[in-house]
């Protein structure tokens, strides 16, 4: 084993990761706030009107980051699940469980903002097209993952079962992403309506990217917070948790 690997496994132990995560959380909150303010500022105050969609298009600054995060978090979750199965590290399972609720939140937000966008644009809250449907499936997968883990009391078992489900469900992600290409549907494909004058397009693009970064930082911060709670709960019989809780009244 190389030195690097040993180092990695050191941080993979809950005992060392817990304080590390605690130190990182404020930074991610700070970044999330900065990006969020900048992104929303550009998106809602500076960006010009869209020629086709009017002002309603501003939902894009919420909808696209939420959609991206919902897919991306699933991939990260599946990655942790795979590591957990392969190397049997305790931290991996905890990370996967910590990510799932946030992923579900973003999947829901993608649906919600999409529905609120659809009403003015398409005239209906919901249509059963491929993109929308596969995003709904993604939400179901998250909920299935959470429900499965909640139904199993032994955390080690819950981790493994959840990991298997997460890995099987990964096939859904490319389906969501490419659905607009494979089936021609109501939902627009990548990079629509960014075809106006280059400067405006750039402004919208920046707004979207900044908002996406904000959501990204937010997700990391929240996942770290949650993983700390999960660690306390699962490691409650260990000495380090006892010492920790005895220390700070």
């Amino acid at each position, binding site marked *: 084993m190389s030195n690097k690997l040993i180092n990695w496994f050191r941080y993979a132990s809950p005992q060392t990761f817990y304080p590390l995560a605690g130190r990182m959380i404020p930074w991610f909150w700070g970044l999330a706030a900065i990006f969020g303010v900048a992104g929303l500022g550009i998106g*809602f*105050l*500076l*960006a*010009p*009107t869209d020629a086709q969609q*009017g*002002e*309603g298009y*501003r*939902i894009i600054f*919420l*909808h696209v980051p*939420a959609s991206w995060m919902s897919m991306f978090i699933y991939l990260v979750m599946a990655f942790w699940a795979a590591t957990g199965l392969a190397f049997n590290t305790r931290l991996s399972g905890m990370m996967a469980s910590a990510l799932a*609720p*946030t992923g579900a*939140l973003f999947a*829901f*937000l993608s649906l*919600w*903002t999409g529905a*609120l*966008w659809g*009403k*003015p644009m398409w005239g209906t809250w919901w249509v059963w097209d491929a993109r929308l449907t596969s995003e709904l499936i993604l939400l179901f997968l998250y909920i299935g993952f959470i429900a499965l883990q909640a139904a199993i009391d032994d955390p080690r078992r819950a981790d493994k079962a959840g990991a298997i489900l997460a890995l099987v469900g990964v096939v859904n992600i490319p389906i969501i992403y490419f659905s607009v290409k494979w089936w021609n549907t109501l939902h627009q494909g990548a990079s629509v309506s960014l075809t106006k004058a280059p400067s405006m397009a750039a402004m919208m693009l920046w707004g979207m990217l900044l908002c996406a970064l904000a959501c990204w930082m*937010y997700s990391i*911060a*929240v996942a770290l*917070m*949650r993983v*700390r*709670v999960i660690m*306390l*709960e699962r490691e*409650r019989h260990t000495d380090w*948790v*006892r010492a920790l*809780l*005895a220390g700070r009244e």
Partner: protein
Amino acid sequence: MIHWNSLAEFLAMGRHGPYVWGSLLVMALLMVAEPMLLLQGRKRLIARLRRQYRAEAAERGQAAAGGRSTANGSND
């Protein structure tokens, strides 16, 4: 530089106000609520664990002092 001429115009969002603000509001609410819930859950967990540790310590103290009554066969 700012795109809007008046607050009213900003709020109206070109007749799409409810949709845009509905999205932003729900998204913001949920994204604030999630960490709040987490902090609250964490507080509750820590309180519970502290209680549990105290109870265990007390029990151990008792066991050391007197020893627990053991099961025996008679029942009257």
